[in-house]
């Protein structure tokens, strides 16, 4: 199960968060600080998985943005990577060549993440949802 999704810029600024398990505000800040410290310092061309507090965090960098998803120990990491990619593709289609600024200014349309989570098969379907 995905516990949360974080989008963090290379400078450590948070661009988007989505929590699927209950965390208090304090915990959230702590999690973000811990993870950005862990992930942003990793050199390129290393593996995309980080073990963290008994969970796994799968991250991938697109341009200057890190997409991180926290999953259970026995979840499929490669599948999550595919989901992240899928998500980015959706963003790309919706915004037309997505960039970080799009996300900054359109944070409230975050049902996109929701849609990606449910892993519906058709991309266009989700875009229809987002644009409604």
């Amino acid at each position: 199960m995905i516990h949360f999704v974080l989008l963090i810029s290379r400078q450590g600024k948070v661009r988007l968060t989505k929590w699927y398990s209950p965390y208090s505000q304090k915990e959230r800040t702590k999690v973000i600080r811990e993870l950005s410290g862990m992930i942003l310092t990793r050199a390129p061309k290393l593996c995309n998985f980080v073990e963290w507090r008994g969970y796994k965090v799968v991250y991938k960098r697109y341009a200057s943005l890190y997409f991180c998803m926290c999953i259970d120990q026995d979840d499929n990491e490669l599948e999550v990577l595919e989901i992240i990619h899928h998500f980015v593709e959706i963003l790309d289609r919706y915004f037309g060549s997505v960039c970080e600024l799009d996300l900054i200014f359109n944070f409230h349309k975050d049902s996109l993440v929701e849609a990606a989570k449910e892993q519906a098969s058709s991309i266009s379907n989700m875009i229809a949802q987002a644009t409604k």
Partner: protein
Amino acid sequence: MTGPSLMDSLFQRSIDDLIKALRLSPPGTETAFVAKAIDEIRREIKSTDPHTKAAALQKLTYLHSLHGLDMSWAAFHSVELSSSSAHSHKRTAYLSAALAFNPATTDVLLLLTHQLRKDLSSPNVHDVSLALSTLSSICNTDLARDLTPELFTLLISSKVTVRKKAIATVLRVFECYPDAVRVCFKRVVENLENSDLGILSAVVGLFCELTENEPRSYLPLAPEFYKILVDCKNNWVLIKVLKIFTKLAPLEPRLGKRVVEPICEIMKTMGAKSLVFECVRTILTSLSEHDSAVKLAVSKVREFLSEDDPNLKYLGLQALAIVAKKDILAVVENKDLVVKALSDSDLNIRLEALRLVMCMVSEDNVMEICRILISHALKSDPEFCNEILGFILLTCGRNYYEVIFYFDWYVLFLGEMARVPHCQKGDEIATQLIDIGMRVKDARSQLVHVARELVIDPALLGNPFMHAVLSAAAWVSGEYIKLSRNPFEIMEALLQPRTSLLSPSVRAIYIHSAFKVLMFCVHSYLKLNGEESLIPSTLTDSELVSDVEVDDHNMIATNGQAPSASSVTHHLTQESLLALVNLVEINLGPLAGSNEVEVLERSTNVLGLIKLIKPMILGSLNDSEGDQTNRELKASETVKLIFDSCSEDLGPVSVNAQEKVPIPNGLVLKENLDDLEEICGDIKLPVLTSFSLVRPQFAEVSNSAECQDKEESELSTESTSLLAEHRKRHGLYYLSPGNAVTVSNDYPPAHDPYGKAIVEDEDLAKLTEKSLVTGKKPIQSKPRPVVVKFDDGEVTNVVTNRTRIKADLISDAVNEVLLGDEATTSSSSRRKPPKSRRVTEDSNISIVKLVWEVANTMGMVKRGDVEPQARIKNMIAKTSIKVIVGCMVSTGRGTGRIKQWKLKHQSFLIFFYSNAFLTKILRSVVVINILVFFSHWNWLC
């Protein structure tokens, strides 16, 4: 519309404005800007105009979600806005609710119930899906219960988007309100046969989560899952189905046989790595008895490992780790790739590889692997270096050094590890050094050798990470000094000037070890002398006498004599012993003024003993008088007693040792010993005077002695009667008079190393038989040294008792739906809430209980830890013995008074003598303190 709200809506900053302004604000002023923005929002959000309100809420949500601001105060506004008819407002409201509401703490949550119900039944698809996704984030028991009927309807909605969202939401509702299963489960199951991929994916995802907790309930659905496995072509759905089978297959062997074939088929034909990896994982975890499948899976893993992609490498190593638990050969086959991964640039990959390498360790290859690893450790970065060392220590120490055959080698290796430049595992190394000393008798001589190398090297003292190791080395050198070739050298090492760099606690151990060494030397000297004086007419005696005479007149002559190296006793001339005593005295003298209690105390103890011993050694140089011999005799007796108490073998202590000591009859643990406190009350005053570290003791003592004398005489009658009373009641724990030092040990010993050793031998025999049958192990020329251990295991099994009442409830309901009523009767027994085991205890913990608990905790402290000695010492030695000795010095002159003190003193010690285990741990500290105390007494009498 009122004026201000019109103004607000006209000049309100939109979210875009806010974001832009925030981005433009110079660094550092951000907090101030945000605070200002919040003020603005607080004003705007109260507006009656929904547009203004929505915009304010949107801004607030933004600040909450990305800048971590508190927005719990605005919860009601979200609820308010959710009833707006405009979809965009509704969306803002629901989004803020989903992000900010906490199901457990937000109190306005229930106000949302009605609106959610309305939206769930709305004809507008978007409203419905909005309500669904909000519900899934903020669901609590009440919401789940109240909205189950609506959800039930949506499960057969004709709209795909709605239906799949409803299915996903069902998961949260089940978790919060298990009774919903009875209502909805059938419809959810029906969706398994849906042809739409989105819906199928959602249902399978739902079951994947549900089986995670309680797989057995879902076995009846296996045929449906099997159908999906065979028919479905979507990778993500297949991965989820495989996960379900991973859980189900171990429960039903026939199922494993059915699914193994299609899984292998998928593995062979599919290109997607994620799916292939999931197949591999499923086979290795749950279908490991199907050999051909495992073989195929392992070959796939090998492919992964040989790829350049770090992700695949990492996962390949993880997959191997799964196999390693069952079939180590598969790992050994891939040893080359694993070892190669040890030098990967990615720390995570290296760690995985390290874990695998450590899995491969066996009795035969442990030396080789350790050698490879240590060379890796030497050339890698500090972090990984310590990981390696940690893993080596963990693996080699596992199950009482199971894999270690040559302890001499391992002890040397430990010393080598301690010297690795980045080593920060000092504590663990120290623990093992001491532990091996206690458990493995045969390794002790080598251990002493290694400890000598460590203690003697002045360069190591400067490295704070080494201090733990050094303390262990010092302890070993002191404890097993009789195995040392040159105790004098050890003594010099223990007292070398650079020891001032050590922390006080380590230094205290150094001093204590020096003390043991000193005792050993003096004792062996006395023994030597004693033996010779027993046969007065032999040549050796006259030789010795002439020697003494020569020494007396001509010191240089003895200095010129070359000592023969073969035996310790040959070193021991009076001269050299005196030199040794002087060395100790000179080095410890300044420490008697130390500000550190530990150091001060131990060095004073040693100095006190030297005071006692010195006349004896000197006495044999001078012509002995009648008085002198008398005292000398006393002193030599004391030395013998101390040495005997020190030379008892310290064994490992089982965690359960204390439990095995039966609580003696009449020992009431919960009794409050207030009366004892009264007895001891009069001791408290001198504590302050005799314990001041800075001021000189005796000036004050003489003053206080007088006033105390008066007080004492008043109190003494009262306290003696109280003590007598107490003694009558708890006679068992008082020592019989006149028998203060020798401990009568009525209780069964906590452990019997000799008895265990026999059992161990049998075990070993069995082990060797077994290994001979397999023929893997070369025949060893000598038997493995005995490692003392206990059958019951020393590690308390912490039963991981994760209560899964929720999961149980869900599965109960599922069973009911799937299997009918008969299942519920059997499962209902599980539903009983676990009995709370906590018995409210009398908060008034008595002293006896406290002491008993201390004893219990001591058992759990790692064996051989030098610390507990110090800790316990702090507890008793300081509060009782030291106080008494202090009082003795300050007040005690009359014998009657001393006797009285002695009785009180005993009242403290009874608890510790009352079981075998504690005396063992304490013997070096308490016994010595008592002996020092009695030596003081002897002087005073």
